[in-house]
């Protein structure tokens, strides 16, 4: 066994151990931290699988967005570690749930193990048609050209998620701002961190988005890093979350999917197919769409994390 194989086996074992720990952890907070650690380890795994695009997504979403969301939620639940619904669970129900989980895991494992050695793949066709898009990164080509309708709908789902979160607000808070008011004097350590980090993070986020056309990266990863920068500035109480009724915010939330959809419809007229790109114009068009998508993702994710409005709207 070579050193590389030994490393891979060790890494896989570590991932498995942390996953198991997360499942059996004593309480929500411990499980959440385990899950954040698990996500970081997964980015290492994706690097080993040479899936750098996925590693970037895992890093940006796992440490930035979902890490903050879940740790915040777990810390909030600390006072009420067991809910009445949880207490009402009998041993039999738990056993049944565990059985169902095992069944799903076994089914997934069976699917993976029973795959033919040469799995069904569209990769050669994608690589063959890649030059027509003018892009160098096949992942971006698949996302924004070959299955663009899917990608557009995914962004619609994110916007629907924000609508869902906002709808949890009490009636009198509807249209108000989520989170706490801007502090008179922000906590100095966190404020300094945000002041220094946010501009650097903006550069990195834009770079990751822009480089995605030809190298690993893309709108989602770049947008997630930009989103994290807005989140840290809000966490440091240097700015307030915007009011949910703000027109610019609503516009920013739909800009990405709207531009994407408009490009798709225009393709039906100009290029002879819904979501078809006119030959030669594919790359600039894709980058144009991605710019708006990055912007929308950078606005949507912090709104999901900030939660429902909790203050009465100012008018």
């Amino acid at each position, binding site marked *: 066994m070579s*050193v*590389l194989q*030994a*490393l891979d086996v*060790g*890494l896989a074992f*570590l991932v498995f*151990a942390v996953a198991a*720990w997360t499942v059996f*952890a004593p309480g929500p*907070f*411990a499980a959440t*931290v*385990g899950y954040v*650690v698990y996500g*970081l*380890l997964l*980015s*290492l795994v994706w*690097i*080993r699988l040479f899936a*750098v695009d996925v*590693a*970037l997504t895992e*890093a*940006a979403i796992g*440490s*930035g967005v979902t*890490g*903050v969301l879940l*740790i*915040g939620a777990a*810390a*909030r639940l600390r006072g009420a570690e067991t809910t009445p619904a949880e207490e009402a669970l009998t041993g039999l129900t738990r056993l049944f749930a565990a059985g169902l989980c095992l069944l799903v895991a076994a089914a997934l494992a069976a699917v993976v193990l029973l795959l033919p050695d040469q799995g069904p793949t569209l990769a050669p066709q994608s690589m063959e048609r890649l030059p027509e898009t003018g892009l160098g990164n096949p992942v971006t080509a698949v996302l924004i050209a070959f299955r663009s309708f899917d990608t557009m709908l995914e962004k619609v789902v994110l916007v629907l998620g924000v609508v869902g979160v906002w709808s949890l607000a*009490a*009636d*009198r*808070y509807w249209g108000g701002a989520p989170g*706490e008011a801007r502090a008179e004097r922000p906590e100095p350590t*966190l404020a300094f*961190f945000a002041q220094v*980090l946010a501009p*650097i*993070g903006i550069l*990195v986020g834009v770079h*990751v988005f822009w*480089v995605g056309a030809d*190298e*690993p*990266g893309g709108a989602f*990863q770049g947008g997630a*890093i930009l989103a*994290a920068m807005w*989140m*840290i500035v809000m*966490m*440091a109480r240097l700015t307030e979350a915007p009011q949910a009724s703000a027109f610019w915010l609503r516009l920013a939330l739909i800009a990405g999917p709207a531009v994407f959809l408009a490009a798709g419809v225009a393709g039906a007229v100009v290029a002879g197919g819904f979501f078809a790109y006119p030959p030669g114009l594919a790359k600039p068009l894709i980058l144009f769409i991605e710019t708006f998508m990055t912007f929308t993702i950078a606005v949507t994710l912090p709104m999901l994390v900030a939660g*429902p409005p*909790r*203050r009465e709207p100012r008018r």
Partner: protein
Amino acid sequence: MSDFLLATAGAILFTVAVGLVRILGGPGDADRMMAAQLIGTGGIASLLLIAAATGARGVDDVALGLAILAAFASAAFVNSGAPAEEPDPNPADDR
């Protein structure tokens, strides 16, 4: 040389794993929070070593992203603890 780099990456992952056993178990949530910090620093170190050994492209950006976001979990941890003194506006009240 690349075997050496991979072996050191493995050694760091191993020490990180041993540290994780210690702090994920607590006793306090602050100890657990350190696990995220430990895996952040150790993970970036082994990431850079693996990248140098295998020559995977674009890993710099992943390391950069992880470095930028390394303190976010701790920030969320202290931030969620901060407003506990204020009364939490309870949306259930005004139905």
